[in-house]
Every structure is written in C-alpha cells, then in structure tokens.
C-alpha cells in the first residue's frame, strides 16, 4: 500500500504554519472518525491547506470526504485528531470561526416558500459583517431570480443559491461539499467561475468532488481519498506525472482473445499494462516511441488492430492505478 503523504511546500524544511508568505488556512493531523464504534469513516488523515488556494478532496462515494469536510467545518466531532482552522480550534473559538467560514453542505434543501432574496437576507443576518445581499446576487447571476420562490428554481440555480448562502457570509474560507453533483455541464462551469472569482479575492476554498475533471481544472492541489485515507496528494499535474506517466495508449486487437499482455509490457516506454473488457491500456511516457513498436508487434502476432487511441493521462487513471477501481464505480 502506498504511504500516506504529508503536505507542505517541498522546498521548505521548517513548518510553514507561521510563515508570513504562505499561511495555513486549514490543518488537521491524525484525523479519525468512527461511527458507533464500528464504521471507520476516516482513518488517520493529515491535511494542510494554504491561504488562497483551492484544495480538492477527490474520491468515490463513501470514501470519507463528507465526514472529513464536516469535521473541518466543526459540524462533527472527530473521534481523535487535531483540527486547526485559521489558527483557531473548534473547542475554544467556535463562534469566531463560524463568522469566518462560508459553508455549503451536501443536499441542503432550503425553504421553498422563501424567495432567493429572502433566503440570502436570512443567512446574511446571522453574520456580523456579511456581504450585501445585492452584491452576492449579482456575483452569482441570481438577480433575475431574486424574487422567485426557492421551490421554483432549477437544480443549477438551487445549487448556486446554496453557494450564495455561503458567500453572503463574506467568508475567508469557503467549504463546498460536492457543489456540482447532479448538475448539467453549463451549471457546473458557472460554479467553477464562482469559485475562481472567490479565489481571486484571496479566498481559500476546500471542496469535495467525485468528478476528476472538476478536480483537475479547479483545484490547485488535491488529495485523493479512498476508504478514509489519503492515497495520493499533490497538484493535479504532479499526481498524473508521478503516478501514471504522461500518456495513455488504449487499443484492442481481434483474434487474440486470451492475450495476457506480456508482449505489450516489453514494448519501449511502457510502464504498465491494464486489461479491461479486451481493451488494453498502456501507461507510456513517449507515445511516439511506443506506437510504432506496438503496430509492429500487432503485425507480428498476425492480429488485427480494431481500436487505437492515445490521450493525456487523467486523475481517473491515477485513481485506477492506485486502487484498481474507477472513481464512479458503485
């Protein structure tokens, strides 16, 4: 099994916590959460999230993402482990921290009989120094829907409103639990823009997702979680490079149903081979070296190539490489 990794700037040997240039927004060590003494949702998790970055927790359903983020949000008590948010902890500074965090939970259904504006007015009234409701409405392009009842909104609009209730807090850190699950591509892109805007104003974002493309495009750094543990962490490109090589060559051949893949792994530049439903996936560093050799090998075996593609490796490949499963597998 892979060793758990500790985050931190690789170039620094001293702890980054009190560094003036890079301050830590969220930090946790040895986080564990056991439900009813049996189910281990989180099994020893260390995280360090820097101010101003967008950090992603990526993992399949049930990996422990929501439990982790809710512990960091102070909504769940960890069974053991330390949590520090903006240098404070939940036991002693809960009220202060609540003022600083903007939170969007998974699957909150806001009151359907209130309008968008009323909902935001309600949430803004809980904070000492909230962002004016009109500013948030404009930022999330909800002005036209401001006086519609929440019950009449589309899924994407509801999700944007959920994020708006977090932004109206005028937060220093934004926690988003699966903000785009179930949304159409356009709504997802809208939400990504909102997150980037918030980041531009020096906001810190922590989000969970099981969409690897989302994590790849939106997050500065991310941690891949499986079975309550971090199995890999780093910037998206680091992870892809470190764990899979740059490219994936996928192909299928006819006439050779029982091929064990041995022949393919000996091709130049191939790091590993995976077979799935007759489809071979080769992790390669240089496709232009591998592909000619591959074609020659196919010919030599007197097989027919029925499929051949080459693509950039993705986080999905990282996950498959690490766990042998796909992210979206149930």
């Amino acid at each position, binding site marked *: 099994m892979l060793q758990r990794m500790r985050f931190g700037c690789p170039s620094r040997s001293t702890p980054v916590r009190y560094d003036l240039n890079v301050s830590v927004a969220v930090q946790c060590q040895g986080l564990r959460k056991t439900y009813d003494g049996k189910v281990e949702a989180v099994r020893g998790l260390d995280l360090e999230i820097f101010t101003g970055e967008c950090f992603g927790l990526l993992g399949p359903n049930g990996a422990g993402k929501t439990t982790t983020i809710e512990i960091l949000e102070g*909504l769940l008590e960890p069974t053991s482990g330390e949590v520090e948010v903006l240098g404070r902890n939940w036991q002693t500074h809960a009220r202060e921290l609540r003022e600083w965090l903007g939170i969007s939970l998974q699957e909150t259904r806001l009151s359907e009989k209130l309008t968008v504006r009323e909902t935001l007015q309600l949430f803004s009234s809980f904070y000492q*120094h909230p962002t004016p409701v009109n500013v948030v409405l404009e930022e999330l392009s909800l002005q036209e829907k401001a006086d519609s009842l929440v019950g009449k909104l589309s899924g994407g609009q509801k999700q944007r409103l959920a994020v708006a209730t977090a932004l109206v807090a005028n937060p220093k850190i934004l926690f988003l639990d699966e903000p785009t699950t179930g949304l159409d591509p356009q709504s997802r892109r809208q939400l990504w823009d909102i997150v980037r805007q918030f980041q531009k104003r020096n906001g810190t974002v922590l989000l969970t997702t099981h969409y690897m493309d989302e994590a790849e495009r939106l997050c500065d750094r991310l941690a891949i979680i499986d079975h309550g543990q971090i199995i890999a962490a780093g910037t998206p490109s680091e992870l892809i490079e470190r764990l899979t090589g740059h490219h994936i060559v996928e192909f299928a051949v006819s006439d050779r149903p029982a091929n064990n893949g041995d022949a393919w792994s000996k091709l130049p530049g191939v790091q590993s081979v995976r077979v799935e439903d007759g489809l071979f996936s080769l992790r390669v560093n240089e496709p232009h070296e591998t592909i000619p050799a591959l074609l020659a090998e196919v010919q030599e075996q007197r097989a027919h190539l029925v499929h051949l593609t080459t693509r950039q490796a993705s986080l999905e490949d990282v996950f498959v490489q690490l766990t042998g499963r796909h992210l979206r597998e149930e």
Partner: protein
Amino acid sequence: MATIEQPPVATGPEQAVVTNGRWAGYARLLQMRMLELWREPEVIFWVFVFPLLLALGLGIAFREKPPDVTPVAVVAGWKANEVVALLQRSHEHASIRAEVLSAAAALDGFRLGKYALVVSMDDAGVHYRYDPARPESVLARTQVNDALEDAAGRKNPIPTASTASSEPGARYIDFLIPGLLGMNLMNSGMWGVGFALVEMRQRKLLKRFVATPMRRSDFLLALVSSRLALMLIEVALLLVFGVLVFHVRVEGSVASILLIGALGAVSFGGVGLLTASRAQKIESVSGLINLVMMPMWIFSGVFFSYERFPKVFLPAIRALPLTALNDALRAIILQGDSLTSQLGRIAVLAIWGGVSFVLALRWFRWS
C-alpha cells in the same frame, strides 16, 4: 496543542460589508417564519379556518330548537270539540296541536308518524292510543293527559313552576368555544413547532443553520415568538366569531384570556419541541404528535365534560395540560374568574411547558 501565540488571521477577500446588530438574526428568523406560514395555504386553513368551521358546524348541530309542538289527532265525534277546547285552555296550549279527524284518518296518520297520539272519547272517558316504542308518543300521552286533567280543574297538591333555560352562558356552544380554543392552541403548537422542526431537520436546514454563527437560542426564540403571534390571531378570530355568530358572552377580561392563551401556546410549543427533539423523519414525528395529542382530545374536555369519566381518572385528567388550559379558559371566559383563581391550572401548564423545554434542549439534535 500548546498555543504560544495566535498566528495572524489570514486576510479574507476584501469586499463591501454591512454590519448586523445583536438581534438581526432573531428578527429575520421571525420574519421568515411568518412569511413561510403565510405562504402555506394548509396552515392558514388548519389554524384559522378549520376551528371556525368546527365551531360553526357543532354550534348549528346543537343549537336551540324552537320548542317542540306535539301533533295530536282527536277522533271526531262525541265531546271531540270539548277536548280540543280544554287543550286550548290548558297551560300546554302552545306545545300541543290538536286536529279533529275521522277515526280511520286519525289511525292512518298515527301509523305514518304524522301524529304522536290519538285521543278518542267514549262513555268511560278519554282513551289514548300511543306507541310505547316512540319516545315522543309516550311523552305526548303524559303531556296531553296532564293538560286535560289540569284544564278540567285538577287540584295539584304542590304548586310547581318551570323555566326554560337557553340563555347565553349555559348552552353547548358556550362550553364548546373555550374547548376549541384550547384544542387549537394545542394543535398549532404541536404541529407548528414539532412538525416544522423535524421537516427542517430532514431537509438538513437545521444543520445548515448551525453551520453559521446563528445563535441557537435566537432560533428557538423566533419559533416561540411566531407561535405567540399566531396565538393572538387564533384566539381573536374564534372569540370574535363566537360573539358575533352565537352571541357568546365573554365574562372575563381579554387580557387574562390572552395571558392564558400565551401560556398555553408556549407550553404546547415546549411539548412540541420535546416531541420533535430527536425524530429524523416527518412520518415518525407525525405519529408521535398524534400519540401525544390523542389522549387529550378524548380526556381533556374539548367537546364534552370530562366529569363523565370515572372519578378515579379525574386527578390524572386534570393534570393534562389541555385540561388545565380548557378549564382555565372556561373559567375566565364563561364565569369571569380572575387569573389568581387559576393559579393551580397555570402551574400545571407552566410545569408541562418548562419541563418539556428543558428536556428538549438537552436531547435536541440539530442534524
């Protein structure tokens, strides 16, 4: 972890901000709660319209009917006119309608229920034909006989007098209106607090709220305040309705009624809070609420007096919050009693509300 010094708080996004005062959250929570209620047509119906319909229906069903007139057939013939004349002279002349008919027509009418009694005369005297299975027939025989004997000059050994009583203050509707008031305060307290809370919990809205700096006490206070505001409307509507439609007389002071109403609303709000303190689904809390309310519907004297139950049950029945509320409302509305005379019942309500509230706060689940 040893804290040497607080690290500098990371600077957040720079933006225009507004500043909220201490009670901003409470004010908005109350405002939004009232808006939500107002936009929920079912709430308007069950809280405001339904009790009025119930009062109207029951008030009409048990209204004072004009005195019954007993239809009597007198068989034409010997002395028939004399009998009719006697009846008309008697003290019962207003409640007996006598018609002179042939024997056959009289019997036919009697059989069809058109007449309660057939009176015929022969040498032996007056003969009554009545049906012992029909109460009004039995009653008619006694009534007519008494009227005839009296009018014919019977001397009664004891002089008697009767007064018909259907004055406001002693009618069924007078008993009913305070009972409905109490029941309505219970219903809307239990549903308005209990059901609403569980629905918010199921929607994960409670969890979302506690993820903000919202004061939990503000939230509960706003819920209770919204109950009080509704209570004012509920009490006013039902009382004004009773006064206008059924001429119910309100003997006690309006302030006392409102104070008892407020105590009832808060007390049942507490019971509703306790009922909803842990339930996760609206289905389960619906069952719980009905379970809690059912005994009080039956025993607390909403529709009929609980004095009809065996005496051993009465202390337990009087310890129920709805019994205390109904009794106190009746004493103040119907008898004009003062608040100080109701201290026992006030204590019962306060204890139910207070104990429920404390337990609810201990067990309450926000997520």
